[in-house]
């Protein structure tokens, strides 16, 4: 009977198992300096070595249906390491399958004969050939930091940390954050703040860290580089795709550094909802900044009032990369919020030639003073007896032209009130017969398709990415032409079209 209960319980206790390897990597800083990092790689199994070391380590998201997390650790470093998750309960640690007390601390005797601990939990020895397994059960939903629990002052500086997110167990979408709060997966943005003190990393690399070395401890450490999600801002990073106007964005802010930071969101305020993975009884509305001490996590909601790239930056000392000698900024990132622009009037398509609205314009106001990072287009309720007759061209304010659809959809099957979404990230071409859905731009006839003025002359680009870097503001024109004068009948774009623009920083 007891055995039955146990096996039933373990079945219910669906668990996520992650194979992490602590290992070294070299990170090139914005000023070209090469820094030794210790990070985690996510392997497919213990010893597989098929993952890539990253700092921060891989984002661990425990699905809503799971209550338990197991991390199997391999240690390719030269010193012992381990993993802890503050504010989550370590249920057990297994050394090659044999349970050991999770509260085991590695100890040493110092020069004054004192017994001192170097770890918060059971150590994984360097070069372990058998797995050491750390298990957390009854995980509490929220935003957490996992990090090394051994020689932690140094090992967290070296890069042994990452974000752990536990989704709310209830709900069916799997996107529950806290009780009463569901945020779409694409709107959940982890932001890990960290620092690098390059002198410490150099000393470790040279074997000069520790007693007798050039740097004996972390006591006088001061950081040189300030990073969000492992990167100093250099101007080269794309904005973080956070969602679209109308979305509620969740910022999961995690401080993996040894100093306090104060993320400030530009242009708008947030509602701070949780700290250390625990929701506040009273949410803190109207906050443009969040106080984030070392190892703290905070969650904030942000409902953008306008599409655009919102800066998020550190208001403490972190807005720098190694002083003036480095490139622009340290802890700076942009949250891209896309926005839809819609025109609803119908356009009639004649038996031959240009449609009644030619070009069919959407004007993006000048307040959208940014360049485009991604374009998506929707044509609403298109009807045509012979879709292959249609050539549809989109032209941006700077004259870039992309063929959305030409000679696609076949000649035999009429389209009736079909809504077509054009998106580069979709790998499927516009189908025959024409169907409602998302497709990549499709130009079937390789021969020239001509559009009468005012449409620009060809050639035309084949992917929407050609618009990247175009200004958002200005007139976007849709040109629809029926290029087959011999029959086929008339058609109609019944409900207009929509332009979805996502900003670049």
């Amino acid at each position, binding site marked *: 009977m007891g055995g039955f209960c146990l096996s039933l319980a373990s079945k219910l206790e669906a668990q996520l198992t992650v194979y992490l390897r602590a290992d070294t990597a070299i990170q090139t800083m914005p000023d070209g300096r090469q820094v030794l990092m210790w990070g985690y790689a996510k392997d497919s199994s213990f010893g597989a070595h098929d993952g890539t070391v990253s700092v921060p380590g891989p984002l661990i998201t425990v699905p809503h249906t799971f209550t338990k997390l197991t991390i199997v650790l391999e240690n390719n470093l030269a010193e012992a390491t381990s993993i802890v998750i503050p504010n989550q309960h370590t249920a057990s640690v297994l050394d090659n399958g044999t349970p050991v007390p999770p509260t085991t601390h590695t100890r040493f005797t110092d020069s004054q004969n004192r017994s001192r601990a170097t770890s918060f939990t059971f150590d994984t020895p360097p070069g372990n050939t058998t797995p050491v397994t750390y298990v957390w059960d009854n995980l509490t939903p929220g935003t957490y930091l996992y990090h090394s629990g051994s020689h932690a002052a140094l090992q967290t500086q070296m890069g042994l940390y990452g974000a752990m997110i536990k989704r709310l167990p209830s709900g069916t979408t799997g996107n529950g954050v806290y009780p009463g709060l569901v945020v779409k997966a694409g709107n959940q943005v982890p932001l890990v703040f960290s620092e690098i003190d390059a002198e410490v990393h150099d000393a470790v690399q040279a074997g000069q860290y520790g007693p007798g070395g050039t740097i004996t401890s972390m006591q006088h450490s001061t950081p*040189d580089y300030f990073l969000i999600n492992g990167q100093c801002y250099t101007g080269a990073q794309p904005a973080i795709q956070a969602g679209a106007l109308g979305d509620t964005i969740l910022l999961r802010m995690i401080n993996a550094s040894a100093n306090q930071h*104060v993320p400030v969101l*530009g*242009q708008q305020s947030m509602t701070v909802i949780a700290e250390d993975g625990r929701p506040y009884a009273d949410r803190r509305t109207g906050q443009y900044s969040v106080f984030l001490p070392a190892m703290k996590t905070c969650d904030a909601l942000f409902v953008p009032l306008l599409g655009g790239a919102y800066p998020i930056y550190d208001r403490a000392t972190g807005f720098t990369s190694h002083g*003036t*000698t480095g490139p622009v900024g*340290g802890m700076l990132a942009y949250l891209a919020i896309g926005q839809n622009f819609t025109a609803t009037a119908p356009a009639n398509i004649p038996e031959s030639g240009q449609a009644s609205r030619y070009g069919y314009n959407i004007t993006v106001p000048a307040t959208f003073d940014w360049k485009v990072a991604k374009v998506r287009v929707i044509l609403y309720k298109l009807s045509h007896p012979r879709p292959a007759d249609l050539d549809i061209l989109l032209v941006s304010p700077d004259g870039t032209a992309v063929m959305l659809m030409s000679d696609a959809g076949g000649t035999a099957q009429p389209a009736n009130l079909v809504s077509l979404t054009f998106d580069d990230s979709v790998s499927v071409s516009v189908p025959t017969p024409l169907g409602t859905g998302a497709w990549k731009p499709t130009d079937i006839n390789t021969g020239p398709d001509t559009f009468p003025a005012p449409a620009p002359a060809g050639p035309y680009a084949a992917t929407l990415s050609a618009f990247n870097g175009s200004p958002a503001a200005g007139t976007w024109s849709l040109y629809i032409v029926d290029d087959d004068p011999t029959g086929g009948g008339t058609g109609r774009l019944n409900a207009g079209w929509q332009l979805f623009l996502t900003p670049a920083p």
Partner: protein
Amino acid sequence: MRNLKPTVIIERTTVKTTPRINQVLAGLALTLGLAIAGPQAQAAHAHHVIPGIVGPTFNLRAKAGHLSTPDGHNLYFWGFANGAGPVQYPGPTLIVNQGQTITVNLVNDLTELPVSIVFPGQRVTPSGGSPGLLTREAVPGGGTASYTFIASRPGTFMYHSGTRPDLAVEMGLVGALIVRPTTGGVPIANQAYAHPDSAYDHEYLYLLTEMDESIHTLVEQGRMSEVNTAKRFPVYWFINGRCGPDTVAADNAVYLPTQPYSALTIFSPGDKVLMRVIGAGQDSHPLHHHGNNALIIARNASLLQSTTASGADLGYSVFTIPAHPGETTDALFSWTGEKLGWDVYGHAPDDVDNAPLGWSTGGAKGAEDIDHDNDGVYDTIPLEPHEYAADHGKPFPVKLPGDQDLTFGMFYSGSPFLGGVGSLPPGEGGFNPSGGFMYMWHSHNERELINNNIFPGGMLTMALVEAHPPAP
């Protein structure tokens, strides 16, 4: 015997009825070049209003200048000037009304770096200038940019350069923005937010910053490439752009030409003081206001409220206000001397209670003959405004030594009682002619109470409790 009133009462009355003494002592302080704000500040009971410039259009110039520190040093700094006025630290406090459309026109007279302005918590439309990381920037050598926003919500905000803020904030390009609440477009007087929970008698600004001397020296010497803000190590700490004890000098003190804003806080017992605290630097500072707890009612210009109409019901009481970089905090402070266990006005026991009848034998019972301290006997001396009744008439628990046994601090009025002054030896005292209680408000990080290693100084100012003036 009861006709012999205690000395303190007599002296206190003297001061109140002969304001000339105030003027004389204030004049003395001025003569000595030691102007403090108190004597020349507004009349004792007027509402204190934070000085600044009024919108909705502002013309700010970023310029370089020098500020002075009480240890005799001066530091090269970058600041904002009000139009053609002198550069100042912090920049002019911008005061606007909720609902106004604000325009800030910036000219950058610096030669070293572009300058811009960000207004955390506001949705700003920048124009002109050149694109920058956080907003549009005015190029060095006279470049311009403009910033427009609607001051949609009231409260305490800040502004600072958004161009290399790690360096610009360190160099001094910061200032306060105060948005006054309005109803129907009309400002609500003496209230920080729309709700009456934020009503106050006086408002004071505490804009907290710090500076690393070595960075300022490198910038002044044109050695910009050697500046490394990641390694900054502040040695000066400021309230409203001044290091203590300069913080208590009057607004616009002539010997602080680029540091116009005082931080001396003056109020009377029971007055509600709104503390607008701004963490304008890059470090956290725990602002400790002695004397009483304060109720934090807003953070980042957002009232601590559970619902939009609940008032500051989530406010909480602290004795140290944590001021974090970029964050603003509003707190309400007041002081009455409650529960000190002695009568701060020096009403003497044998003077105020007349056992066993409760009023002077043979005299008519007056309107003030009330048993304030509930000890069964009536008091003949009325309560001072906001006096803590339970301590009325309780004796001062210290026997005062004679003058020859005392060392006099400059703020000692000669009397331990509020509003009282006593005789002082020639040359002693003189900084506290109205017999106020003066005591320190300061960073609770005691390391910040120095001016480049010289104690005392740094992030400290004084609070001055003044007795209520007599009824007219």
